[in-house]
């Protein structure tokens, strides 16, 4: 079931979507936040990437077990009608919350640095309208957007890295590749962990892939593209972030010096570039993907609902969540709740895989349904 008929995705589109989810977490974690862990930043990024990729394995197995069907369709078969309905509802709600949480920090930063006099409700409405417009075209349109944004973001990162090349200092690399211990590595890696978002993207987009056998090429390609994307982002941040310990927006101050010299007018320039490269595109696409997951769930509950109406409904819900007056502490708590929900999803996936194995009485976890 997909939002429009006759949609299908290519393996590269799936890889681009998943890699976007993989790569977007890293740029949002600044060096200052990482400083309590006496761990190299690049090391943390690579371990976090490994964790994320490991989390994709059960998802791939589940997708392979139910080719062409989404979670909303086979969860009632595995967990019973009631269990399936509860799971599906939870997924829809978490997806809407995830969409809102992707946008909220970006809008706050926008208000702080770019548009201090424009109400957040107005800037948010524009972004939600764009997300709703993206949903209109169906899963293949969303996938093509993801593919296009991935290529654009990767190109922009490559340009930034190229411009930073004269300022690259290998001593920073050696420091940020440091490894101090397993416990610190684990805690640091989890703090950089980009969440289960790539897993969600894979779970809800992979059923629409045109190719039947996805496992090997998808796993390899996701690993390769995600690693490249992560590494480039990590390099940029480590190079700039190490030089200026002033926090989240320090990374591109050096870049802005390259453009116009040390004129004391850098913050605006650096923030604008930062916004485009690291915040807007990946966050926007993450919001679109999450809304797509939610809209898909809504259509599964109400089959007679038009896909465009489902997209609009979830967009309105996400917009409403964004307008909720929440202070920073409440926002962080809600974010943790969302993360917990996503963490709790892994055992559910494993449970569904086990149930499927026992149901089919086959010895392999990779059994096809048809």
């Amino acid at each position, binding site marked *: 079931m997909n939002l429009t008929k006759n949609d299908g995705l*290519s393996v*590269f*589109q799936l890889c*681009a979507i998943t890699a976007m989810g993989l790569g977007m977490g890293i740029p949002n974690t600044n060096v200052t936040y990482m400083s309590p862990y006496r761990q190299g930043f690049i090391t943390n990024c690579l371990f976090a990437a490994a964790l994320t990729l490991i989390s994709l394995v059960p998802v791939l197995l589940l997708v392979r077990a139910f080719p062409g069907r989404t979670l909303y369709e086979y969860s009632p078969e595995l967990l019973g009608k009631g269990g399936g309905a509860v799971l599906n509802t939870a997924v829809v709600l978490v997806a809407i919350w995830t969409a809102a949480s992707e946008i909220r920090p970006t809008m706050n930063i*926008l208000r702080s640095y*770019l*548009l201090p006099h*424009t109400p957040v409700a107005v*800037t948010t409405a*524009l*972004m939600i309208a*764009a997300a709703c*417009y*993206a949903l*209109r*075209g*169906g899963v293949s*349109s969303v996938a*093509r*957007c993801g*593919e*296009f*944004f991935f*290529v654009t973001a990767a190109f922009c990162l490559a340009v930034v890295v190229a411009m930073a090349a004269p300022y690259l200092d290998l001593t920073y690399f050696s420091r940020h590749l440091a490894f101090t211990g397993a416990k610190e590595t684990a805690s640091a890696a989890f703090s950089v962990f980009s969440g289960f978002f790539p897993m969600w993207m894979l779970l809800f987009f992979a059923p629409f892939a045109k190719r039947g056998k996805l496992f090997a090429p998808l796993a390899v390609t996701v690993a390769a593209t995600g690693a490249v994307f992560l590494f480039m982002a990590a390099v940029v941040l480590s190079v700039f972030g190490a030089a200026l310990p002033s926090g989240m927006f320090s990374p591109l101050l050096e870049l802005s010096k390259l*453009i*116009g*010299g040390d*004129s004391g*007018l850098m913050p*605006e*320039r650096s923030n*604008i570039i930062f*916004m*485009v490269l690291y915040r*807007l*595109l990946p966050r*926007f696409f993450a919001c679109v993907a999450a809304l797509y997951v939610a809209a898909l769930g809504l259509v599964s509950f109400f089959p007679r609902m038009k896909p465009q109406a489902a997209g609009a409904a979830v967009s309105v819900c996400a917009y409403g969540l964004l307008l909720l007056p929440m202070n920073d502490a409440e926002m962080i708590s809600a974010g943790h709740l969302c993360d917990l929900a996503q963490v709790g999803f892994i055992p559910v996936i494993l449970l569904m895989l086990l149930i499927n194995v026992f149901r089919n009485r086959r010895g392999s976890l990779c059994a096809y349904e048809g």
Partner: protein
Amino acid sequence: MAERNAERTRFGRDARENAEAVKALFAENTDLTERVVTGADGAEYLLLFLDGVVDKEALQRFVILPLSASCRGEAPEARHAAADVKLPASPREAAKALCCGSALLFSPGGGTQALELRKPQPDTGKESSPENIVLGPHARFRNSCRSNIALLRDCIRTPDLASAEFALQSGTLTKVAVCYISGVADGRVVEAVKRRVFSCASADVKSVTEFIELFKEDRLSPFPQYVTSERPDRVTEALLRGCVAVIPDGSPWAILAPVSFADFLKSPEDSHSPWIYTSLIRLLRLVSVAITIITPALYVAVMSFHPRMLPVKLMLSAASGRAAVPLPAIAEVVIMETFIELLREASASMPSNVGSTISIVGGIVIGEAAISAGLASPLLVVIIAISAVTSFTIPVYSMVISLRTVRFFSLLLASVFGFYGLIMSLIFMAIHMASLKSMGEDYLFPVAPMRLKRWKRDLVRFPLRWVRGDGR
């Protein structure tokens, strides 16, 4: 191609069967004409020729009349006065001769002759104005559908070039031809185009102009989904790539489908220029698209919301230029854009011997006068001029118009939301283009969906031997 399974390799004794064997080699063609000529002795001769390619007057005078005339003791097929006569050994050879402008004469008893009677295609002489090139042929289509198909047959001499005709249901008795190369064009695309043409032809369409508009406007999108061209070489290249051409009678414009955004950045001159130069020019055109859309909106965003984004010296220069302008940046840009559009429309409508002079004078006078009157800053005049010039580097005029239209959307969002609005407008455009299709083909192909092999041909132009075999 399926209908040619029973291809005969030799001619038989029956004229009708030989003619059918040749006809079977052709994909559907409405310009393939058969004529029966009865000789004075009562024998029936079959003439097969392509209408529009063969000189019918010469055919009548030198072949049909002598065949029909009474003459004793001489084989009728020896009486015609065609200058060049060949004897094709097989139906395939005969089909090739047909495509090259010969008429086939099938005699009772099995003889087959290919008579060279090609109609000379007069040089159009006049350069096609919206598609000017320096290197390459300077031919263009005419208003006759049959002549245009003949021009295509001049370039593509193969029986696989198919043409199907549809008649408009209005009283004008106008027809529309759908041309494609059988075996190269995707069958589903051909059927989709035919269905579309049929639905447009069945509608209450009074003229060719209405048909073209109805055919093209299948979505509320500012971006064109079809390339229109007056040039046979562009249409030939598209057909060889697998596109389908819709050629209406009464208009020199052929409609090509399916196309992607990259096709609008290709010029017919590209294949006649060195590949390095062509690759750089295509990348330049891509940059021109970005400049056309972004620069006026960027000016508004920077001047209104983020002036500190500029380096100090540029910022001071821009500020001093705007000191005498009482209007906000958006009003300044809208006024100057309106001037440019008025100039463009006026120069397009005026006679060519005064149009260019008036355009130059008008541009200089309006630019200077606007600055003196305080309606615009010098920086803005430069930006508007650059934006206008870059828009005209796009080879396909329909895309030029679209880009000049969509940039007002960027301008609007930039005037309200600054740089964020500009980026969101580009995101909106990207989303729109990602969901757009041209007869089933993705509009952003080969970027999304990604086909790296096609970048060698579509985004840049690699040498032919590096590109061959990459397929569609």
